[in-house]
């Protein structure tokens, strides 16, 4: 555990304060294991530096890169109804609400009524019969008076 602690301290120095990877500080010098560890750290870093080519997106490639991002951003945007459809939907809802309100407020519609009946003509084949008519608001009445004794 102590060894591990010393190695960690060495690594911290190596990462933060080491300006040259060829000289181990005096605090760690003389310890073969630590010196070996330091040598490995330095060699590893040199090896990484030889293959750590920093890949880049060139300026000429940037438009294509950004285009791909824009496409995805547009696709991922929440769907929004065009304004006209929103207005139409709102108008339809308002219409329904208005009609419903009117029906409720104004009550049932008036009953359908026929025009006042009118007797245009009348006739009878019964000899001696008389016909009377009476028309009021909703009804038309016809009386046929037949002479007595003439009923079959």
């Amino acid at each position, binding site marked *: 555990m102590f060894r591990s602690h010393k190695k960690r301290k060495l690594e*911290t120095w190596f*990462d933060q304060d080491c300006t040259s990877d060829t000289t181990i500080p005096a605090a760690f010098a003389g310890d073969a294991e630590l010196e070996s560890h330091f040598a490995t750290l330095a060699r*590893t870093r040199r*090896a990484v530096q030889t293959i*750590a080519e920093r890949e*880049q*997106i060139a300026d000429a490639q*940037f438009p294509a890169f950004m285009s791909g*991002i*824009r496409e995805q951003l547009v696709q991922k945007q929440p769907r929004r109804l065009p304004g006209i459809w929103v207005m139409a939907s709102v108008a339809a809802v308002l219409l329904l609400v208005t009609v419903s309100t009117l029906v409720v407020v104004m009550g049932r519609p008036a009953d359908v009524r026929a025009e006042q009946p009118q007797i245009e003509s009348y006739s009878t084949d019964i000899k001696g019969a008389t016909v009377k008519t009476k028309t009021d608001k909703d009804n038309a009445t016809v009386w046929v008076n037949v002479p007595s004794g003439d009923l079959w």
Partner: protein
Amino acid sequence: MGLALETPVYFALEISTPEGDLPVIDTDKPLVTRAQAGDLEAFEELVRQYRNDVFALAYHFVRNREEAWDLSQEVFIKAHQALGQFRGESSFKTWLMRITANRSKDYLKKRRLDTVAYDDALESHEVAAGMMGPRESLEAREMGEVILKAMNALPHKHRVAFTLREFEGLSYEEMARVMECSLGTVMSRLHHARRKLQDKLIRMGVVMGGKH
């Protein structure tokens, strides 16, 4: 202040910011604010500025330009979606790198990138080493290629730590902000990554060493 002193007293005023709490670079702030308000041109400018930071880090994980391209685009798309959550507690670059490190893990899982089983790489390389001699020093580049293969077998968090330090050259503080952990955790993960890599290099005879 009515303080009379017979001897001069010198005060050392130390200003320090809390760990991981550096402010956004001033030049970014207006762009970030506009981007958060929905200005796509401002966001595009941020992409232009930091595309290579994201791309380079992404490449370190996937080791393929096309994959890194896709991953980088995913990072910026995620960043755009999460712009409202960015509060400027870290720099925008650090925030992007954090997203890159997190997304890379998911990306690698999703793509099911073959991580070279280190033992396989070990065997194939042992053959070559046997021909060359284990004590013969490998060219630094060859050693670097071996390290890359060995990194594939590291746990993701250790791989991230090693990549940020050795490939990107980030300081411990910057690493802590990217990985959203303490300095102690940064050092611990880096230590474990190095230990595992070193163990494997020792087994290959690439480096000399003993037990940890």
